[in-house]
Structures are given as structure tokens and as C-alpha cells.
């Protein structure tokens, strides 16, 4: 019961946050240099006077500012994110079509990164001062320090020039036109390099976190008790210590969603992956503001959703926080 009440509070909070994002978008449109109507039209190669007039009346731009806010919020909340004059279609359908490829890339990378990171972190916590442990520390530092677009290009060079087993561009082979299982296999092969790039970036952070968390967990009283009652080391390590050390990893996976989305946008432009990233890149080039603001709104929504899911997951796994709000 408490669980559901908590969920309701979270949902209410999320709706407020989303309203705030809409208001932020409104402020951004109005603080941009130039006439708001022209900002909304975007630099689409000279908006006609009719289009500008239509925007002006639709968004109520000749009315008082607070009326404009209400109109804008109502429009976005109703699912109307505006119209892209460059792509010549509604922003919402434009974005919705690009979300699945990005989500596929993100979820595949996040899951793999978490698994690889935890394995590396556990190995390195087993003997914190050994050579493998130092190597893993170095790997996680390097993974953080390499800019994600550069990592992508380096992988592209490595696999494209010396070891061409993976395609370096796109999401599927257009010429071959695979169907069924062959299609899935084709997409997976195209997924390899973009996701490997994101995995290299994120596995580093997961390994660092799970290493610290394991070391902390290993120094607790319940681990000492487990050892004192004569359990073998493997069981102490993998059952008693690891299970509790995983909690921060779950939190981290949720928190990584926003940064990962940013990383995916960049990686997609490197590998021509047909998701949100390509759309972002094209909209920046065309100064297509409704699309950019729409993407900001949708991505904030996805981050909020990811937070709710993480929170619920956390409460289901950890009995200590199931008791309700602090």
C-alpha cells in the first residue's frame, strides 16, 4: 500500500517537472534573438508571411504573455509538439519514429555495460592491489577520458581498416533487404560498433562504482559474520557481499540514462544510426527549433520515466527502503 502511495507521489512530482520543462521551452523560444513566430518556424529557407501569421494566431503570440504560456502548455500537454517546416511533418511523429532505434542502442549498451562493469569491479575488489585490479582502474579512467565520438571513430578505423567484420554505418543493409531472422542478425551486426563505443564509456563507470561498493560491502559486519560462521569465501563473496553491493549499481543504471542519451546522440552521428541523434544533428544544421525543443522535452520525459522505474525496482529489491518515504 505504502508502495503505491509512494508511486502516486512520484507521479505527481513528475508531472510538475514536465510542466516545468514545457515552461522552460517557452522561455527559451521567447528569449531567443528574433521574433518568436520566426523562431518557431525555424530557419527553413525563408518562412512565408502566411506561415508566420498562422503561427502567430495558433500560439496566440499577439496576446498577453501569460495567455501565451497557457496556450503553449495546453498544446504540448495535448501531444502537439509543433510542426517542423523543414521536414514538413509534425514534430511528435518525427520524434516518435526515431525513438525505437535510439532505445535499442541505449538499452543494449546499458545492460551490457552494467554486466561487464560489475564483473570487472568484482574481480578488481577481490584483490584490490593486484595487477589486474590496476589494469581495470586504468581502463575505467581511460574509458571516461576518451571523448565518445573519438572512441567511436577509433573503433571504426580499427574494424573498418584492419578487421572488417562489422558494418561501420547505418542500422541495416538497404541493398540486401533482409527479412525475418536474417534482418535481426543484420541489425545486430550494425549495432555492434555503436554499442561497443557506449559500452566502453559506461562499463568504466560501472566497474568503478561496483569496485568501491564491493570494497565497502566486504568490510561490513554481516560479511564478517558470514566469514566467522565458516562459509566458504566464494559464497561470502558472491552471495553476501555482491548482493548488497549491487544496490548502488541499480541506482547508477537509472542515473546514467540522461548522460547515455547524450552519448547516444553523438555516437549515432558517427555511425549514421537512424535514431534521435541523426535528427538532432540535422535540426541543428537547419536551426529547426521546434524539433530540438521537442527532443529536449521527450528526453526529459524519458529520464523521469527511467527514474520512476529505477526507484520502483530499488524498492522491490531492497527491503530496507520498502517502508515508504523517508
Amino acid at each position, binding site marked *: 500500500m505504502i508502495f503505491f502511495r509512494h508511486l502516486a507521489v512520484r507521479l505527481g512530482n513528475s508531472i510538475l517537472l514536465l510542466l516545468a*520543462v514545457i515552461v*522552460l521551452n517557452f522561455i527559451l523560444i521567447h528569449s531567443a534573438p528574433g521574433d518568436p513566430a520566426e523562431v518557431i518556424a525555424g530557419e527553413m529557407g525563408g518562412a512565408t508571411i502566411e506561415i508566420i501569421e498562422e503561427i502567430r494566431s495558433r500560439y496566440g503570440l499577439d496576446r498577453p504573455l501569460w495567455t501565451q504560456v497557457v496556450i503553449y502548455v495546453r498544446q504540448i500537454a495535448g501531444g502537439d509538439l509543433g510542426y517542423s517546416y523543414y521536414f514538413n511533418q509534425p514534430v511528435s511523429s518525427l520524434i516518435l519514429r526515431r525513438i525505437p532505434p535510439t532505445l535499442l542502442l541505449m538499452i543494449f549498451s546499458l545492460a551490457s555495460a552494467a554486466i561487464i562493469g560489475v564483473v570487472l569491479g568484482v574481480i578488481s575488489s577481490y584483490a584490490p592491489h593486484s595487477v589486474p585490479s590496476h589494469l581495470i582502474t586504468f581502463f575505467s579512467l581511460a574509458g571516461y*577520458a576518451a*571523448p565518445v*565520438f573519438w572512441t567511436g*571513430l577509433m573503433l571504426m578505423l580499427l574494424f573498418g581498416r584492419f578487421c572488417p567484420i562489422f558494418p561501420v554505418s547505418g542500422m541495416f543493409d538497404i541493398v540486401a533487404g533482409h527479412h525475418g531472422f536474417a534482418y535481426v542478425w543484420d541489425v545486430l551486426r550494425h549495432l555492434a560498433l555503436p554499442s561497443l563505443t557506449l559500452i566502453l564509456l559506461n562499463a568504466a563507470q560501472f566497474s568503478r562504482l561496483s569496485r568501491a561498493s564491493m570494497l565497502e560491502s566486504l568490510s561490513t559486519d554481516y560479511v564478517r559474520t558470514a566469514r566467522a560462521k565458516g562459509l566458504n569465501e566464494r559464497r561470502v563473496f558472491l552471495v553476501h557481499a555482491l548482493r548488497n553491493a549491487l544496490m548502488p549499481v541499480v541506482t547508477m543504471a537509472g542515473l546514467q540514462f*540522461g548522460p547515455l542519451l547524450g552519448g547516444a546522440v553523438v555516437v549515432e552521428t558517427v555511425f549514421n544510426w537512424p535514431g534521435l541523434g541523426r535528427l538532432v544533428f540535422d535540426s541543428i544544421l537547419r536551426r529547426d527549433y521546434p524539433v530540438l525543443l521537442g527532443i*529536449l522535452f521527450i528526453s*526529459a520525459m524519458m*529520464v523521469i520515466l527511467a527514474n520512476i522505474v529505477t526507484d520502483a525496482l530499488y524498492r522491490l529489491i531492497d527491503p530496507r527502503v520498502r517502508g515508504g518515504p523517508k
Partner: protein
Amino acid sequence: MTVIKDVSDLESADNSQRSSQLEGTGRFFGRLGEFWRGFKKNPASVIGLILLAAVVVMIIIGPLIYQLDPFDIVSAPFTPPDENFRLGTDYVGRDILAGVLSGGRASLSVGLFAALITAAIGLTVGSLSGFFGGWIDTLLMKVTEFFQVLPTLLFAMVLVTIFGPTWVTVTVSIGLASWMNVARLTRAEFMRLREFDFVRSAVAAGASSARLMMVTILPNALPPIVVAAAFDISFAILLEGSLSFLGLGDPNRMSWGLIIGQNKNYALRAWWTVVFPGAAIFLSVLSVCLMSDGLNDALNPRRERRF
């Protein structure tokens, strides 16, 4: 008579005696020596510092010695590295070495100033929130939560697109998009320190809120915040790289991300156009990370390291 509770009291009593003997510059060097002893504990931090110094010297002196305009077309496109053009030329025939040398100025200066903005906003929000608590805390934490919902890169990107890509907008956008961690850290430190006896006695002595925050608490809260701010420089350099890679840097300044972004479609044909500028970003970020770890060892000896 002083009551000695534990070893750290003994140490500080000893330190205050020692520092009262040292005056002026001697005292300053004494503190610097203490700082250095903490910093050099880990060889990696010293390597980071040397690397960072090398990068900074390279981008300050480099363009003065190697006087080639990074925007000038000096050779055929895609000339591989040879004795004339050590790092080759890009897709229109501009010299990569000149680009790498002068491109660092944009990347590092944006990184430094964006981190300063991050620290300024984060310190203000965090200290007000942690000191006053109550509705101020609730309100400011709601604001912080709101900014955390916006993906950093996407938010900075939208800001730069709307306000136009100049050095100032890029720097301010990165600062605006990434102050939240410093705010949370500052808030936690202020909340922790607020309960200490030295703060209570200052309250009893009638210190104003402003004095309590700036003079009594802030100096004690600074060490972990300084480390976080130093680390944020590395984050800001990476973010600047991504923005200029996407074509959102100042078009009148050469930048490492810009070189890679403009040549990315030809990476397979001319590897040198992307390898070198990226390596420059990598080494800069790496050195800042290692250095901030050293700062951590020197300023917060009891806290655990980031890497």
C-alpha cells in the same frame, strides 16, 4: 588547559604551534609543502600534473613557434603526415598540427571557465540550501532536481543553438547545464558543518548569517568542493568537444572537436585527421582527472579516490 580527545587534536595542536613559529612567506611555503606531500603520495597524480603542464605549455607556446594559421589551406586535401606537414592535412588541405596546437586554447579555456561557472552556481545554490534549510532548501532542491532531469548535452546543445555559437554562449551553456553535482555536494557539507560546535559558538557570539556562511562554514566546506570543481574541468572539456564536434563551437576559433567533426566522414580515408585532435582531448581530460585525484589526496586525506 586543553582536553585532548584523540590523535587529530594532538596533530592540530602540534600544527598550530609549528605554524605560529613560521611567519609570512615561510608559513605559506610550509602549507604548500604539506599540500605537496599529500599530492605526491600517488605517482599517477604527479604524472597527471606533468602531463597537464605539458599540454598547457604546448597550446600556449606552440602556436607562437609554429606560426601557421589553422584555417589556411596550405596543401592538397588529405596529405598524409610527412616532413612538411607533420600531422598531415584535412579535407580541405588545412594543417592538422596547427589545428591541434591552437585548437587546445578553445577547448581548455572553455573547460576552465565553464567549471568556474559550475562552481559559482553550485556553491551559491548549495550553501543557501544547506545553511537555511526549510522552504528555501525545498525550493532550491526542486530547482536542482528539475535541471537534473534535462540531459546535460542536449540542454547545452539547445542553449547554444538558440543563442548562437560563440565562446561565451558555449561556456555559459556548459556551466548552466552541469552545476547540480556541486550544489548537492555543497549542500551536504553545509548541513554537516552547521551542527559543529565551532559554528554553534559563532552563532552564540552573534555572527550574521552571511558571516556564518562565508567566514565560518565555507572555508571548511571547500576541500571536497575544490576537488569536484577540478574534476568538472575534465567534464566541461569533454562537453565542449561534443558540442564543437556537432558543429556547435565558435566557428571563428579552431577547436579539437571541430577538426574531428568536420573530418569524421573521411576518417577511413585519412586517419590522421581524427586520431591526433582526439588524442589531444583524451590526454587533457586524463591529466585533469589524475590531477584532481592528487588534489583529493592532498586536501581530503581520509576520503576515497575517484579512480
